[in-house]
């Protein structure tokens, strides 16, 4: 089991020695003990760090955000940023390293193992508790999840409460880290692509109907894009303007910015948005599942990403975020890549 006191101690030491400019970790939130991401800059606050099954967020996002923030500073703090990473977070870090968005020495990785468990799905918990507030949620034995409700301990099987992404995860401990807490227990999910396969088994017409219903709900709040550590582009096809505007950018350059899709949440535009995002994440998505978790409309975004993840594996034997030195999926090829679909 991860001893959180060890993590706190290391975080405290790093801050005290001034080795890092901050520690991004999880601290308790304000409503019902659900953890929130937090930037700790004072050593004494390291005591607030927690590691429990409500630590759902992919903290690699904040590495991206902080990198962009530092780039805007006149005198950037060049010290590394310490980050708590679980398996999926660490794989996201690997992709960022692979794409040279960050260098290894910019981060100090405090790796925590999900061990035989994972993080919970809030909706599942709410459903199981019939609206009662969970006071505390923590890891139990054998991957079980302990939920304290009105000072009563209830134990749930991981199958009941874990997020789908964790039930389908094969990387339940960090693949890259500077410090490691907990144990490496390799988990082998029985059917990581069961949902994708189920949808594939539908008729074309039924799949179309399914996706139309999903996409019609999209409000274009862009939470899925905002939460994604891989969506770091300064210029995105869905934005009518580019954020890469410099004082020297000419009016012509701005006027020529292609408006690929309309801002209106029309079905067609929602489709193009989500398709572009999915394809841009092919070989990059680490299935942290955050996009789907944050979607206020509950759109099955993971089903898109998971499909491409499976195709990358099936067609090209590629798994995202496992090797920061290997070429990325779409920046390489094999002579033997399939081409039976080509006329």
């Amino acid at each position, binding site marked *: 089991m991860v001893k959180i006191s060890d993590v706190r101690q290391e975080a405290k030491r790093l801050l005290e020695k001034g080795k890092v400019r901050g520690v991004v970790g999880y601290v308790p*939130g*304000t*409503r*019902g003990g*659900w*953890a*929130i*991401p*937090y*930037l700790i800059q004072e050593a004494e606050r390291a005591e607030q760090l927690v590691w429990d099954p409500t630590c759902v*967020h992919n903290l690699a*996002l*904040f590495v991206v955000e902080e990198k962009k*923030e530092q780039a805007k500073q006149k005198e950037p703090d060049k010290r590394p940023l310490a980050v708590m990473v679980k398996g999926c977070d660490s794989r996201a870090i690997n992709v960022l390293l692979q794409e040279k968005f960050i260098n290894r020495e910019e981060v100090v990785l405090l790796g925590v193992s999900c061990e035989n468990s994972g993080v919970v799905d809030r*909706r599942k918990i709410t459903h199981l508790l019939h*609206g009662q*507030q969970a006071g505390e949620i923590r890891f139990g034995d054998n991957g079980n999840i302990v939920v304290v409700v009105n000072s009563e301990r209830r134990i749930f099987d991981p199958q009941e409460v874990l997020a789908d992404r964790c039930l389908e995860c094969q990387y339940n401990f960090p693949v890259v880290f500077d410090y490691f807490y907990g144990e490496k227990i390799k988990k082998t999910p029985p059917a990581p692509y069961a949902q994708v396969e189920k949808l594939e088994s539908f008729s074309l017409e039924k799949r179309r109907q399914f996706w139309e219903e999903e996409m019609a*709900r999209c*409000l*274009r*709040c*862009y*939470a899925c*894009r*905002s*939460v994604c550590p891989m969506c770091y582009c300064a210029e995105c096809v869905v*934005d*009518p*303007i580019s*954020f890469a*505007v*410099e*004082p020297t*950018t000419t*009016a012509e350059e*701005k006027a020529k910015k292609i408006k690929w899709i*309309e*801002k*209106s*949440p*029309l079905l067609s535009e929602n489709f193009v948005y989500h398709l572009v995002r999915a394809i841009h994440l092919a070989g990059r998505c680490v299935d942290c599942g*955050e996009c789907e*978790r*944050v979607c*206020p*409309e*509950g759109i099955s975004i993971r089903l898109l990403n998971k499909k491409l993840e499976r195709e990358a594996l099936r067609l090209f034997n590629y798994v995202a975020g496992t090797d920061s030195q290997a070429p990325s999926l779409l920046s390489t090829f094999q002579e033997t890549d399939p081409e039976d679909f080509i006329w």
Partner: protein
Amino acid sequence: MEKILKKSDLGKWVGKLSAFDCYAPTKENDHWEFNQVTYLDSLPEDYTQVNVPLKKVVLPNREVLFNFEDNRNGGPHIQEVLPEEKEVVVFGVRGCDARGVALLSKIFSESSPDIYFERRKNQLYVVGLSCYPLPGDNCFCLSVGGGPFSTQGMDILLSDIGRKYFVEVLTPKGEKLVELGWEFFAEPNDQDRQDRLRREKKAQEMFNLEIHEAEKKAGVLHHLFEDKIWKTESFRCLKCGICTYLCPTCHCFDIADELASPVPLQGKRVRVWDTCQFPDFTMHSSGHNPRPDKSSRLRQRIMHKFLYFVETYGEIMCTGCGRCVSKCPVGIDIVNILNRVESHEG
């Protein structure tokens, strides 16, 4: 006017409203939304709160303002497009959402009336449902001038008192709806009135979230423009649109031209939801951005609701629905922030 409607008569009454488009909460996936219904036998027992608030009926996510075309010979031509003339009844509206539309009216109807909003609002009949028990863990309407039995912005308020609804008919629009099914409405007796009152009292005691002295926050916030709380709290902000898109009072929008054809020119000018939380919202064409970071944008959201709007209209632009607290993916909690700024005073 007060009436009684047996729950079993709800469907019969709604049956009389065939001239209207009727909307009611229906379950989609894991959450409730207002959807058009052809019949309504009952309001679902497990109904809590819709995901996207009532504002979508008066301020839809996309509104076509006009069509335009330029067919060379005749020169450019603009054709106004107004919302369809169709009266809409929405059932099961919670007090926070109804108040939201009432607050929006201050912005959209008082000066330079917005014809699109006005028309949609005039065509809207709000049949509210009082909150007992409270629909959500994060309800805090009582702190911001509302309440579980609030009637502001409603035409009719239904209160569940067991096997019947206590019906408060609040406006001529409400009377019109009741008249269409007058045979199903009875006069309430003292017991009914007591039942309703008892539930209202109980509901008021159920809140577990409160902004302390919310009406005084304007005075506090006034001094906190440069406070460090904005930076600390916004560190984890994703810059997404959830808190504002799902807010009953947030109303920011963008206006854009959408083309069906570039040559000959043919298209629509539309208004679509936009949010102060998006980085490009205030960005000038030059690239200069007066609100360049997450902290200034979080500050704007809270200041607008609890200071700027109060200065202009004398009311808080928040109805305490709790959606921004429940739905924020990173737990940014407006109630917590406002309760914390209190301690900064002096």
